[in-house]
């Protein structure tokens, strides 16, 4: 047993990996399914006029529906699952065990990497599910743009996990860490409404998913660079903060 296997056990024995997979997997089915059958559903509900305003039933729209739905609940799930591992001082008695034996870097590294990896894998599983569901019900999305668009979202999700880690160094309890993370993400989205700033923000990468799979240009280098810098900065601050924080 070491700090890396501990994190894997934390994810599996607590069922947290299943929570992440379930959220993204279910939206991987619901997204394309709703796109495919929304016209019929609206028609059955007597909302015929709304059908004409719907976008065409395409694999791109099915994938966009997956992302739109999955990220709302998914980010909440990631925030709580991540905080449960990354709020390392939530229980001081447990924290003493680790802090008196390892450096903050050694404690944080496996937690951050394993949670980030689990998040990306869960998201990728959702993308795959959505692509397969779309392929069965509508048509197959283009693999290249789908992978590229997914990679942009994956970078954003790693940033989210870094943000959870940062919040865990600012507050101690799991709910506070998770809610502060969600609040910060919402604040960043609001800042993103200011057009000149938007292309620099991590949340811009999420929008890139729809654009790329719809054949749009790749204009995300600035956001990728800033997001990568933000990830590094978050982790650096975490190490400094936790090194000086008393248990």
């Amino acid at each position, binding site marked *: 047993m070491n700090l890396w296997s*501990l994190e894997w056990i934390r994810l599996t024995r607590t069922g947290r990996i299943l929570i992440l997979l379930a959220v993204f997997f279910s939206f991987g089915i619901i997204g394309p399914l709703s796109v495919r059958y929304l016209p019929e559903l609206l028609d059955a509900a007597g909302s015929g006029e709304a059908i004409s305003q719907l976008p065409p039933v395409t694999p791109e729209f099915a994938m966009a529906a997956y992302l739109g739905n999955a990220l709302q609940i998914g980010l909440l799930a990631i925030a709580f699952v991540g905080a449960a591992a990354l709020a390392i001082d939530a229980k001081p008695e447990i924290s003493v*065990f680790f802090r008196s034996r390892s450096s903050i870097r050694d404690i944080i590294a496996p937690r951050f990497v394993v949670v980030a990896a689990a998040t990306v894998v869960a998201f990728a599983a959702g993308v795959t599910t959505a692509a397969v569901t779309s392929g069965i019900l509508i048509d197959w999305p283009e693999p290249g743009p789908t992978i590229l668009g997914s990679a942009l979202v994956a970078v954003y999700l790693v940033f989210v996990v870094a943000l959870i880690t940062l919040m865990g160094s600012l507050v101690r309890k799991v709910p506070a860490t998770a809610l502060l993370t969600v609040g910060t993400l919402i604040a960043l989205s609001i800042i993103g409404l200011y057009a000149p700033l938007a292309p620099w923000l991590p949340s811009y990468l999420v929008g890139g998913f729809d654009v790329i799979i719809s054949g749009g240009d790749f204009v995300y280098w600035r956001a990728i660079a800033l997001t990568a810098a933000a990830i590094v900065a978050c982790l650096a601050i975490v190490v400094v903060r936790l090194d000086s924080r008393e*248990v």
Partner: protein
Amino acid sequence: MTAMIETNGLVKDYKDTTALAGIDLSIEPGRVYGLIGPNGAGKTTLIGVLSGLRTPTSGTMHLDSDYFAVLPDSPAFDPWLTAYEVVDLARNLAPTDVPESAVDEVLEQAGLAEAAHRKVSGFSRGMFQRLGIAATVVGEPDLVLLDEPAAALDPAGRREVLDLVADMRGRATVLFSSHILDDVQEVVDEIGILRKGQLVYDGSLEGLISQQSPRTRYVVEVRGDADGVAESLRAEPWVVTASASDSAITLEADSAESVEERLVRVLADYGQPVVSMQPNVRSLEDIFLEVTT
């Protein structure tokens, strides 16, 4: 010899409270040091500062340790781990190579062999305490800081913990805090008494008892007229006080030499049979209560 723990003027303030008010401590390697004091005296804070989990407000400290382990007063572990996994994790986090067989050995010593592969979520507080000690000693630290290690244990559990602490003597330096004076008396080489953040005594247990039990106080037990003996003692110029209670007479003299030279003669002159005669050695509990209040 270089001290294992050396602190100079260690101060720790929390907002309006001074938890440690200038602690000067020196503990030599291989010793078992008992830290006692009432609740709020600063024991946990001192262990927290020594272990680096809390930052001193001022003062200096030096630990001459390659690897130390600390056990909090209420140890806790992730509930989805088994006892074996907790100790194995502690083993792997130790800086030295410790064979995996050591995990079973320390679990056996801690009385947890049968519960080794059970998840700790169902453990009692006493089992957590013993698991904490197993995880603490498995890495063979040269310095062990234990905060109230026997507080939550039943008599058998306490016995096991004290045996574990006693076993470490000579192999590791042990500092453990406790408010159970019997435990301290049983295993320590040296003792420190904390009161309101100050180390009011630091030295051997015998030294403390001797210091607080001057040899000018004696208890004499006689058969028969204790009041008469006390009265005749009070007439002696070297006796400060003498009082009788049942068959025992407690007296205080102006010096130890006076007692040693004259007490026997006075008793012999009075002619009352003497059952026993001894210096009035006070209990650690009495001393503790006096020193800490």
